[in-house]
């Protein structure tokens, strides 16, 4: 099972390592936020803004992961792999592993870039911060592959994504504090597990409790991986 996962991971990682263009372009969006949006929050804003940006990267970076599966579903690649003795869970976990590794590398680069702007972070904080980002990536990546496998069509998948990601992001308070808004909007954000993950990520790089965020991310990981594994194990998938 471990070997299977490693092989599936290595297979999907190899083309990315050989041709890292996508990884580099993936850095463009967070860098733009860092350079063109971050300064609006003033000198003291970095400590607050960068952790939110990392969560946003986890969200956008792994939610679209399912797109890489669709060509392999349409051609016979996934089917070919499903007739090998490789565990079907490994077919999912190996892929999610690739996305999470890339996410962590990109996040680390953004943290380092942010430090040039004035963001302060101890090595231990970075480690914890990236760990939380990775967990969120596992949850969202697994769900993304499962949804892609279910809807099978790019244009349907794209509209499912935009319909879910945008509200989840707006209600998570990554760009502006939710407490600035009216009561109803604030309470709506409290129902969004991602808002608690954002709070926890901020607490790691400042002070505050990470408990609620850890609980939220754990629930998301369990739900995402359960949904992913169940979908990948389905016969007709």
């Amino acid at each position, binding site marked *: 099972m471990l070997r*299977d996962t490693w*092989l599936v991971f*290595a*297979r999907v990682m*190899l*083309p990315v390592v050989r041709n890292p263009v996508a990884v580099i372009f993936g850095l463009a969006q967070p860098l733009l936020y860092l350079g063109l949006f971050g300064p609006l929050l003033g000198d003291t804003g970095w400590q607050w803004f960068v952790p939110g940006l990392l969560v946003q990267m986890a969200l956008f970076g792994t939610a679209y992961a399912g797109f890489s599966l669709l*060509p*392999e579903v*349409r*051609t*016979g*690649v996934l*089917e*070919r*792999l*499903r*007739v*090998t*003795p*490789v565990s079907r869970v490994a077919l999912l976990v190996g892929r999610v592993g690739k996305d999470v590794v890339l996410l962590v590398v990109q996040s680390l680069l953004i943290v380092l870039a942010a430090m040039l702007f004035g963001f302060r972070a101890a090595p231990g904080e970075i480690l914890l911060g990236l760990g939380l980002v990775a967990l969120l990536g596992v949850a969202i990546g697994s769900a993304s592959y499962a949804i892609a496998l279910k809807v099978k069509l790019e244009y349907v998948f794209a509209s499912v994504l935009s319909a879910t990601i945008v509200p989840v992001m707006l209600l998570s308070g990554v760009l502006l504090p939710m407490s600035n808004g009216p009561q109803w909007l604030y309470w709506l954000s409290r129902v969004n597990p991602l808002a608690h993950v954002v709070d926890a990520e901020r607490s790691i790089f400042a002070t505050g409790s990470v408990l609620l965020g850890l609980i939220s991310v754990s629930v998301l990981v369990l739900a995402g991986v359960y949904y992913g594994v169940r979908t990948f194990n389905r*016969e*007709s998938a």
Partner: protein
Amino acid sequence: MIKARGLARRFTTKSGPVDAVRGVDIDVAEGELVGFLGPNGAGKSTTLRMLTTLLQPTAGEAIIAGHDLLTDPAGVRRNIGYVGQKNGGGADQRVGDELEFQARFYGQSKHEARRKAGELLERFDLLGMEKRAVSTLSGGQQRRLDIAMGLLHDPRLLFLDEPSTALDPQSRRNLWDHIKQLRADGVTVFLTTHYLDEADFLSDRLLVIDHGSIVGEGSPDELKNRVSGDLVVLGTPQATTVATKFENAVVDGEQVSFRIPNGDRALPQLLKDLDHIDVELHSVQVHRPTLDDVFLTMTGRSLREDANAA
């Protein structure tokens, strides 16, 4: 190698249940090359997907390569090769990488996988392409890569789903030679096709499926012999006169066609008899029955028309 009993699959659709496969029995002995013939939508692929663990049967049971399909699908997967209808190589992957990973998925070491991949590259005329992206290969090359990927673990039983669909005649012929070679090497091959010439050329034995049930079984020649006699087509201005002399004769303008047993031997006497009654002939043709005729007699439909319509 394959022993299936009452294998069935029912799909639930919005307009109600659809029985894609209605309880088929399949027996394939070791070393046989069996063709599974039927028009599009007859249930060929569904049956194949059940036999290869891709689809759970709704009824029935099967032993594939010594392993129970229902209780030991992992054992089945380890011991069969499967080449699907569509291409199995990842577009962004290199040919050599895909082969090596596929071998390692079957438990081979890195070293073993590399050796085996090299062996199959050579055997399927893909040498020198290991560093190329799969997406740059021609249709025929991709198909050979697919088959190579199905053989990395030396399976004793290989499933091929419509192996030559969308190939040009030359690649097709080349592919057939490779498949024949597999049989000569002692590999049991089970292939689906809706091409008569393919089924005729490759198979030791044919199973004919239509509407989810097996409607006929036998070697291509046995099946052809079931059609009563050879088709004789005569071109003559007196077509209607000639038609009265033979059972079930069909007149089409200045042409009359009918079936007689052993047409090639019967023809000389037949021509003499026609000459005797002053029938003027300007053309004579004798056709051995084709698998299409077989299909027509078994199902009342022409396989060829169906394939053209699809």
